[in-house]
């Protein structure tokens, strides 16, 4: 195993641990909705939410970085250049995340000065981490980019997948610069903030997970490089072709010109089309290989990725993307339901698939199966769908009572929140959140144990 692959396993370990913290913080945020006096003025909703969404971003980023460290040396048949530095920075990264979290928990917020921005809380969603930590992330990401490029140069090799990845890493890194500025004008602030958030999760991250899925399919199903490359280019063409101006669906209501309602709505409504293509592709791959694979959990999580992405991002997104609908759904739990489903489907499932793929190699298990993965797969996905359903009910109630009927005042917000539909939705969300958390526990158990038992006969293959 290459050193970089050992580093990959460390990244995955950290990622899965953060996934757990994210889940715990998520359960806490859900609890506030049902018990508003919970930890009042001790540890309020906003801090739990900050932990929840920041661990979300970091666990996925760590998953991506780990995955690239895993696939890169195999792709180039060369150890990663600068691996020692990368290994050190992994521990620095983990330490920084821990320090930021401790400050969030114990200090929470500061005074209105630059010291707070640099060392405590920047207060912009997803990028609340203080500037010193953001600088740290920049160093880690730049080192990571250096690792990728330098290894390709040293190995004197280039592949289509690697080209796409390297080109993608440039905007991915540059966009993170929006984690630093403190802009007075809210319209300008949000304009650039959406470049970071949308162009990460609906553009550069899509391309990145596309590259990772390409490598994964080559390993899982033995698909030829030519096919995965062609498909990757098609994906990039369609995802960026719709997603770049689909950014406009965040520019309906932030003070930007009215033409964004048409442009953003139009391109955003096209965004599900490439995702439908991915679903058809997933069926093709599943079928032509007759579901035969030596790694059923990884394969099933890849299928979950295709379907979850389509339904969570595509269906749920389309439901609320036209400006005529979005005027009412904007800033409600409807958005939350879409967000949870989309993040899970587009990225969570993919990272978990790759972790299973990697574990089969590190444990050298010819045949890789267990009972626990099926339970965790079921609990996590069932839990997620249930959560999303609860949030959708609450969100539609909010859209109707708060926005459409109530005019979005404080009183309208209260009326919507007190409505039985909203309250039921929140109870449902918490209940299914517990199911999801159980799924996480089983997932961890499975990741620790799968493939470690007595080896099964090498010729055994599972069919659907």
């Amino acid at each position, binding site marked *: 195993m290459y050193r970089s692959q050992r580093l990959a396993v460390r990244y995955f370990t950290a990622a899965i641990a953060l996934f757990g913290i994210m889940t715990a913080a998520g359960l806490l945020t859900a609890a506030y909705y049902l018990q508003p006096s919970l930890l009042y003025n001790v540890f309020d909703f906003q801090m739990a939410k900050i932990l929840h969404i920041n661990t979300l971003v970091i666990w996925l980023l760590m998953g991506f970085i780990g995955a690239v460290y895993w696939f890169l040396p195999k792709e180039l048949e060369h150890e990663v250049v600068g691996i020692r530095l990368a290994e050190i920075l992994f521990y620095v990264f983990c330490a920084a995340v821990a320090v930021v979290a401790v400050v969030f928990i114990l200090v929470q917020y500061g005074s209105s000065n630059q010291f707070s921005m640099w060392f405590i809380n920047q207060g912009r969603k997803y990028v609340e981490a203080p500037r010193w930590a953001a600088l740290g992330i920049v160093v880690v990401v730049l080192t990571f980019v250096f690792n990728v490029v330098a290894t390709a140069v040293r190995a004197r090799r280039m592949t289509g997948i690697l080209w796409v990845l390297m080109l993608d890493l440039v905007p991915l890194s540059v966009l993170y610069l929006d984690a630093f500025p403190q802009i007075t004008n809210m319209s300008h602030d949000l304009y650039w903030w959406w470049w970071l958030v949308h162009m990460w999760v609906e553009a550069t991250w899509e391309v990145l997970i596309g590259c990772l899925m390409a490598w994964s399919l080559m390993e899982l199903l033995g698909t030829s490089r*030519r096919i995965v490359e062609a498909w990757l280019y098609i994906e990039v063409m369609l995802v960026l072709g719709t997603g770049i101006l689909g950014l406009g669906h965040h520019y309906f209501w932030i003070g930007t010109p009215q033409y964004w309602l048409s442009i953003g709505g139009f391109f955003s409504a096209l965004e599900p089309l490439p995702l439908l293509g991915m679903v*058809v592709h997933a069926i093709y791959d599943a079928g032509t290989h007759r579901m035969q694979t030596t790694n059923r959990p990884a394969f099933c999580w890849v299928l979950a990725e295709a379907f979850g992405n389509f*339904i969570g991002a595509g269906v749920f997104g389309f439901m609320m993307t036209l400006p005529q609908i979005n005027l009412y759904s904007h800033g409600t739990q409807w958005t939350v339901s879409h967000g949870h489903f989309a993040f899970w489907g587009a990225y969570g499932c993919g990272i978990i698939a790759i972790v299973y793929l990697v574990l089969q190699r590190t444990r050298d298990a010819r045949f890789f199966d267990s009972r626990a993965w099926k339970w965790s797969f079921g609990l996590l996905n069932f839990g997620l769908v249930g959560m999303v359903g609860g949030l959708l009910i609450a969100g539609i109630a909010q859209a109707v009572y708060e926005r459409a009927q109530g005019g979005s005042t404080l009183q309208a917000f209260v009326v919507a929140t007190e409505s039985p539909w909203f309250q039921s939705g929140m109870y449902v969300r918490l209940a299914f959140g517990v199911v999801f958390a159980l799924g996480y526990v089983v997932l961890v158990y499975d990741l620790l144990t799968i493939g470690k038992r007595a080896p099964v006969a090498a010729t055994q293959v599972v069919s659907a």
Partner: protein
Amino acid sequence: MTPMALFATATALGLFVLSGGAYGVLYGAGSLRSSRLLTRAGYACYGLQLLLLLAVCLAAPLAGLWKVFLIVSGITYGFIPPATWRLLHALHHRSEAEP
């Protein structure tokens, strides 16, 4: 837009894409297993998608141009599963034919 129109339009739009997805899945499954039943079920889902589109065009409080756009995208959804299937087939066969 009335609250009922909001709920109905959003639901119709979500089901529109979902039935497009079901069409893709069933079409693919039908092609894989050479099952006419599955392929026809796929076409039925596309039919449902078009019905939802019709309902939106007739009843949803959207301006004319938006409805035109939805019609065009509805037609496009019809082509995606067969076109994707043919492309994947061609890519795989080309790949197998070459050393």
